[in-house]
């Protein structure tokens, strides 16, 4: 029956990991602008030639 404790612990740890991920993403400013990324994601394919040099879009630069 101890298995219930194991399962409970695991499920809560998983839940808390996602919760922390959420808090971090808010803190990094991912929720400040929820419109532009939806457009930006469509660009990548249309870029020509040297597009690969473009640095990945990082949100870290945003003020936190």
């Amino acid at each position, binding site marked *: 029956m101890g298995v219930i404790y194991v399962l409970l612990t695991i499920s809560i740890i998983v839940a808390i990991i996602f919760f922390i991920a959420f808090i971090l993403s*808010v803190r990094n400013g991912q929720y400040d602008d929820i419109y*532009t990324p939806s457009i930006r994601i469509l*660009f990548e394919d249309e870029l020509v030639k040297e597009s690969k040099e473009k640095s990945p879009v990082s949100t870290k*630069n945003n*003020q936190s």
Partner: protein
Amino acid sequence: MIESTCFHCGNDCGKTIINFDQKTFCCNGCKTVYDIFSTHNLSCYYDLQSAPGAIPEEIKGKYDYLDTHTITEKLIEFDNDNTQIVTLYIPHIHCSSCIWILENLHKLQPGVTFAQVNFPEKNVRITFNTEQISLKEVVILLSSIGYEPYISLDDYASGKKRIDRSLIYKLGIAGFAFGNVMFLSFPEYFEISEYWLEQYKYVFRWLMFAFSLPVVFYAAQDYFISAYKGLRSKILNIDVPIGLGILVLFLRSTSEILFDLGTGFFDSLTGLVFFLLLGKFFQQKTYSFLSFERDYKSYFPVAVTRITKAKQKYERKEESVQVYDIKQGDRLLIRNEELIPVDGILIEGNALIDYSFVTGESESVTKTSGDKLFAGGKQVSGAIEIEALKSVEQSYLTQLWSNDIFTKDKSASFINLTDTVSKYFTMAILCIAVLATIVWLSIDMSKAINVFTAVLIIACPCALALARPFALGNVLRIFGKSKFYLKNADVIEVLAKTDTIIFDKTGTITTNKKSKIAYQGLQLTRDEESLLKNTLRASNHPLSRSLYAILAEQNIYTLDDYQEHIGKGIEGKSEQNTIKIGSSSFVGNQNESELLNTTIHISTNDQYKGKYVFYNQYRKGIKNVFHTLAKTYNLSILSGDNEGEKEYLKRILPRKTTLLFNQKPNDKLTYIKSLQQDQQKVIMVGDGLNDAGALAQSDVGIAISENVNVFSPACDAILDATKFDQISNYISISKKAIQTIKSSFIVSFLYNVIGLYFAVTGQLSPIVAAILMPLSSISIVIYVTLLTNIYSRKLEK
């Protein structure tokens, strides 16, 4: 003739089409931008959206102040070694092409290492290498491709803005706890008395308790704070029963699990907080690219050019100076289309000042050397030199902002509908709770405390508290879609209560773009018309340009002689014919007319011919708007302009309309104040800085704006000028929305009555609470959202 539009900006190409690369352009500016993009393999810009561009503006010398280190220092947010980061506000950002081209800026200029657009806020964050490019060059680069940044004194003064994300955190925490508590309480909903569930239920219960802790003490703290504040100022606001409900829920649940009496109501508790916060989040619709708190600072430039005299008399030096540093006696150079930042005296040049934004006068005024110029005017013909008389803070215009009205917070004194209702509601449930407890004390002592807490729990006005935020939040979004932007949801409620509307004239009910021009006098011959057009062609005066634009097409030829007499008019000569265009006395008109409208008089070969009269062009639908509104509202027009249009306005407007002219900014403010003292609720509709005081004083200040991205004075709402004819619809929708909220209150009372039945009879089990609470909340949300959507259908999108 085939109508062709510009490939770059989508404007009508007019008469001078430029063909380039098999495409048509309206001007050289657009062609150049296209050329820049195509040589850098960026023509993809035009694939994402057709005609996304803007005509690049003439910016020569405008950004010289960005060379001054002390000024740029304030604008740049990050500066390390040779990397700098700056965030620039670019009003033109409007489509996906804009995002694409700005984020590919590094292909145009390798010095730019990274650029990221924030579309809702219309700004771009640019990281650049100072060894390769300076801030000034970045700004010039942006301007050259039609994305001129808007840098105002506001950017200079305000530091970095902190974004308040606490509501998202709270919502996240409440949602997280709500979901988990729901799972954990599921077994007990069905009361399965299986052996192993019995054994583990204590673990489950304490886990639920743990999850509810952050919800009560962090996510719900606003409700406690607001309830406490309300009680201290003796107001029973809606947060009092909410806070009480949350507290009682938590205490009773904790004691239940502590003494093994039951599961408690942790599911209802977390659910309640989650829904309440959701409502708050929904109501908090902000238009991040608009600002409702603007004052003169966002209208003024950061810096101007100061002329300093060197020791030798004729040697002069120009330098950029921050406007706050302008001292009395400084010589300033104001270029064409630049703003006069301080009160001053004109020293040199032909001043033609457009004060329309400051005073409401529609016509630009000519000033000659020695005249006094007021801050806020815009120079519209060539460069001038002025000598500063005062510093920025002491100027006439900026002093307007020292009026008390700008520091008073309107929302503080406003008690909203929910709080009004909640006063009676809270009293009622407290009475019921006490009565029920007394009754139960005489029947069954052990149940009395249970009943008392159950009443407070079930009466927690979740549905009541949600009706308003969802209804108003929805209306806010619908208005936003049809270009009527409100500062917050309270504005809708105030709007529904108003009974008086006051309009400004210039720029509000008239358009500032086109004026109607009519000719009165002797018929001009064909030669004369041709001469007139060609003479006007040479002039840069705004009136000449608008007259030029409406005259029929003529052959272009060079004049033999052309002279401009400042403040009087222009003179042209071709072969034997001479023409004089300008003021009445200049052309030698004997019969002085009494018309107050702007006129241009014409004489040929010293013989008076006639005049062109400029009429204000009123917005389309103005007659309809006024006649519809007159049924339910008192209407007035307050104008800073002269009485020239009085007769015309009298003719087209409803008879009751009050017309007042020559109103100074302060007169408008006092007029509104006097109406408010007669218990009238006033809407002020205005546009310029001259209305700023009136907009702040009125109950609802609506700023009309031709382009919502550029400056509009501090107000409660911004209305796109094209939607002016919809104004009565917006007001009637607001009224309907308030009715919807009131009717939803009745529905939510019914839910409370059902819940109270369970509570008073002592039958409130966790499962009843867990069903009733979400059910009532969700049905109310659906009810108000649907109704407001139905009412808003008549708005034209």
